[in-house]
């Protein structure tokens, strides 16, 4: 015990420099911070200081209630979020120390258990050596794809795997390649784990496809076990099993001998993105800690739930109250952080109306109960009209107008000759996709570039579509396959799809272009030709001391690739490729071996590289392009997807893609189809409704990013139903009349 509540608040305000600005926690934040025991349900709207709240809450537990940091379990949705949270915690702690609060010196604040749930599960299972877990390899997404490709029966074709009818039943179409089968399999099998589907129920189902699915699931689990591997869904499943056994109880209660402390508090951030198995893990932990104390705090915003396609269920947050009551007999304290410290009041008004008045969001269960409108808590000295509409006659016309606007903003000087914005990177364009095609942001980028406005869109292409990666792969392909084997017809070993063929050819072309047009690449030329020679002149069956990975690394020593490593945008891409290669290597070992019959490498090695490796990168598109960490480059206007923008804020936000209708993706259907097989069956709304609600949430996130300017830009204003929505009276906001009457400038 160190401080009283009052002392704590005073000391924190001092240490954080709040006193001189008379800054305080607001009423709702204060209630949430001072709340100690019992379940807490925090609905944190955009810009409401959610992270601030969590940190204060943690500190209050530690410095007022005397809770040992090691007994606190805090999860975030991404590793990045965990790092950021952790950073801030350490910074605040150090500020307290610097302000002379020595009494807290011996608190080991960094012993807090923070991370994504699957990473915490992983480290705990390793620490407790549960079920030989520590000898297993936890595969990331890439590796698990290769694993599925090679070992999971469900991905096989013909009579060995599912029939076309099976696939059509679930996905409404047939997979066009083995990699598609891998994707589909992963989606189905991870859902079974994450939605807590009862496999026995599946097996006993009248539905033959469900029965079949159950068998594939069992085989998949066996493969994982047999090969000492684990994936993210499975590690959570294992952790739940652990919690239901003696060892898990010991983990919660602590092992004093080994200096392993108990768990006393569970805090979950971004709770709207929790899936069923995670919810069960949190509830089970709470139960083991003390069902009467019920020390679980969840924080999130259901209106910003964007990850259903990854299996997240917003219901966990919306129905938290009901579920806690049912499970623990307690009613959680519900606190809504409704003060927004980010945006101009008119922007807040705008998005308040947006979310409240969309008919789909007024249905029961669409939003957490009792949601109030956000209130502006930031004081602005000046006033201005922060919202504007740009309606072009076409997308290209819209792009021109947007570019003109951006250029003017950047060049503008006021009476004092000051700029409006300090740096172009304070202007952000949000779009559903960052691809520079004509239907997406292509014309916007073009218009900006033509005006000499620097643009930063590092995720404009999938990595394998970039020149630098193709050149590198092209060089490798030239080494291992000088003879263009991908083009040979009638080769029963090398049956390569057209898509892969085209890709390989494209890489070769890029490499050829490189060596004919660029100078200073002798090192590369020598390396390639010497390697080719070594292969050609080797005797049959010779095993080379070289692997794909090793050759890739050698190539990185040659210009231009060595120079690319000094480029802040290309370097992360090479890092990703190197991880892909490593993932490939863990499943497909590939020392190069000369063929026994022909003057090239063994056909099956080429096949593995072409159909498996190249097939995979074409298939995944290096999947979560969004998850790649590109550095922020000042001096350039940013282009970002709605998804990526979550959690961020910008002075000027321009929203695109406003005419979109909601799309009922396959995840809605699958969620519904499988829901009756859950351990606790769930009633779901229609697919269309859920899809529409998710689309609305997406636009809501976009609108809530803006601090000072919110600009909507697209063609065909009358189609902006889902992006502009309705007012309190139900009147369409996406009409010129309405906008005029409400003083929203429209530029056409």
């Amino acid at each position, binding site marked *: 015990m160190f401080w009283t509540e009052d002392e704590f608040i005073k000391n924190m305000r001092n240490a954080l420099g709040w006193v001189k600005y008379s800054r305080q926690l607001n009423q709702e934040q204060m209630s949430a911070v001072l709340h100690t025991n019992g379940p807490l349900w925090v609905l944190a709207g955009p810009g409401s200081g959610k992270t601030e709240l969590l940190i204060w809450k943690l500190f209050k537990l530690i410095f007022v209630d005397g809770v040992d940091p090691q007994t606190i379990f805090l999860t975030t949705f991404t590793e990045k979020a965990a790092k950021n949270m952790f950073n801030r915690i350490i910074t605040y702690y150090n500020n307290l120390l610097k302000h002379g609060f020595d009494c807290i010196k011996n608190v080991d*604040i960094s012993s807090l258990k923070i991370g994504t749930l699957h990473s915490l599960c992983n480290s705990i299972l390793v620490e407790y050596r549960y079920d030989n877990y520590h*000898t297993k390899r936890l595969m990331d997404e890439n590796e698990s794809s290769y694993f599925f490709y090679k070992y999971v029966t469900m991905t096989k074709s013909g009579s060995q795997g599912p029939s076309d009818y099976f696939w059509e039943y679930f996905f409404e179409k047939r997979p066009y390649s083995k990699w598609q089968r891998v994707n589909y399999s992963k989606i189905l099998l991870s859902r079974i784990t994450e939605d807590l589907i009862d496999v026995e129920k599946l097996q006993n189902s009248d539905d033959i496809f469900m029965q079949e699915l159950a068998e594939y699931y069992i085989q998949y689990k066996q493969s994982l076990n047999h090969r000492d591997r684990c994936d993210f869904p499975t590690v959570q499943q294992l952790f739940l099993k652990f919690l239901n056994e003696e060892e898990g109880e010991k983990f919660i209660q602590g092992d004093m001998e080994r200096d392993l402390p108990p768990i006393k508090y569970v805090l979950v951030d971004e709770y709207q993105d929790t899936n069923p198995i995670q919810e069960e893990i949190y509830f089970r932990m709470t139960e083991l800690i003390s069902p009467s104390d019920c020390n679980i705090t969840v924080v999130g915003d259901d209106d910003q739930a964007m990850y259903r396609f990854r299996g997240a269920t917003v219901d966990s947050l919306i129905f938290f109250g009901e579920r806690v009551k049912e499970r623990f007999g307690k009613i959680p304290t519900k606190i809504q952080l409704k003060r927004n410290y980010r945006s101009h009041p008119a922007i807040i008004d705008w998005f308040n109306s947006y979310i409240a008045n969309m008919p789909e969001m007024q249905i029961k269960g669409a939003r957490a109960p009792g949601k109030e409108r956000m209130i502006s808590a930031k004081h602005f000295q000046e006033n201005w009209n*922060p919202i504007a509409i740009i309606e072009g006659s076409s997308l290209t016309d819209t792009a021109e107008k947007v570019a003109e606007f951006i250029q*003017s903003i950047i060049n503008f000087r006021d009476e004092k000759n000051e700029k*409006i914005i300090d740096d172009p990177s304070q202007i952000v364009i949000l779009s559903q996709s960052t691809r520079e095609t004509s239907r997406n942001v292509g014309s916007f980028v073009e218009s900006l570039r033509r005006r000499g406005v620097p643009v930063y869109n590092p995720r404009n292409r999938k990595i394998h579509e970039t020149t630098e990666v193709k050149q590198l792969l092209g060089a490798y392909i030239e080494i291992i396959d000088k003879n263009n084997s991908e083009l040979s017809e009638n080769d029963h070993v090398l049956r390569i799809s057209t898509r892969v063929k085209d890709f390989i050819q494209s890489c070769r072309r890029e490499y050829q272009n490189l060596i004919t047009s660029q100078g200073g690449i002798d090192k590369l030329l020598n390396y390639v030709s010497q390697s080719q020679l070594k292969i050609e002149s080797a005797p049959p069956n010779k095993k080379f001391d070289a692997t794909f990975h090793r050759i890739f690394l050698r190539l990185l020593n040659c210009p231009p690739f060595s120079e690319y490593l000094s480029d802040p945008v290309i370097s992360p891409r090479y890092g990703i490729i190197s991880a892909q290669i490593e993932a490939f290597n863990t499943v497909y070992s590939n020392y190069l071996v000369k063929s026994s019959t022909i003057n090239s490498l063994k056909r099956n090695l080429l096949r593995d590289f072409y159909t498996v490796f190249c097939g995979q990168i074409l298939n995944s598109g290096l999947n979560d392009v969004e998850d790649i960490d590109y550095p922020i480059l*000042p001096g350039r206007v940013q282009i970002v997807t709605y998804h990526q923008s979550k959690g961020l804020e910008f002075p000027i936000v321009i929203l695109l893609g406003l005419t979109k209708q909601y799309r009922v993706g396959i995840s809605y259907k699958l969620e519904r189809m499988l829901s009756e097989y859950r351990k606790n069956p769930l009633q779901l709304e229609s697919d269309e409704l859920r899809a529409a609600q998710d689309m609305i949430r997406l636009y809501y996130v976009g609108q809530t990013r803006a601090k000072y300017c919110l600009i909507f830009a697209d063609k065909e204003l009358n189609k902006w139903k889902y992006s502009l929505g309705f007012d309190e009276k139900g009147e369409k906001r996406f009409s010129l009349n309405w906008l005029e009457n409400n003083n929203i400038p429209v*530029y056409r």
Partner: protein
Amino acid sequence: MSIRQFKDIPREKLELSRPLRKYSIIGDVLSYLLCPRQYGYFKVRNIVPSAQGQLFFGEVIHNVLDRVHLHYRKTNENQSNSLPTENEIDQYFDIVSKALKSQGIRPLSKSLEQRARKLIKQFVFTFGHTLFPRVKDTEHKLQIQTSLDNGLDYILHGVVDVLFYNYEDGNISNEKVEIWDYKGGRIPDEQYLKNYEFQMLVYSFLFKQKNGFYPEENVLFFIGEMDRESNLGLSAEELLDRCTVKVKIDEQKIKHAMKKFEEAVEKIEDEYNRPFDKQWLAPKVKPPETMCATCDIRWSCENPNGKFELSGL
């Protein structure tokens, strides 16, 4: 379109935030001091290196010994105080080895794999009875957050292989603890040994921060020393002596080590502030020869220790 609508928006300066970094003694600081370029490319820029052979030997020994300790503790709870049998050690070894191989971490040769197996057994049967009862904890995590003189915050962490109780008249005392680190190889040259000593001194500092007192002793145990032919005829005690290097707890030395650590962290932090293409350049002082000889990017290095020409495959 008129931007006059927005001419009164608040003027906001662009702020680039600096993330807080976590530094491990071996993984970050020693690695950087030995070669900033390798550190930059493989640790920071996430290029995956190829040289995994050395890794297998150290990893298999660590992991199997860890399981052996666990085995001992578990049987200890059931009051049988038993070391694992040779068979059981073989089983552990096989499980660990298989798992490492499935991760792409392979032994350089079969004979080296066999050697690792033998060494582990030798260690367990020679020292198990005297050492294992004294184990307080294994894979013990140490971590503190602190800041540089210039105010930059960072976190320092490390993992101790084994914490042993230090016997005081044959009685276990909670206040007297030893930090041990297992090394798979043989006692190295002065320059490498210095690095290990540095590591133990920093561990001692972390230990004191966490527990309020220094460990009694820091011990580096070089398992690779055990199978030297010249060891024949030595008693267990003498063998223990041969294989270990003790690092004295000396406050001055610890202070010096921490200063060196901080300087390294400062240097690393400085790198991040440089323009992207001026970061992680080759060091002016050449790294050890063996390091450069197996480095994946030695052919494009400005200052390698040795002459390297890239030839095919």
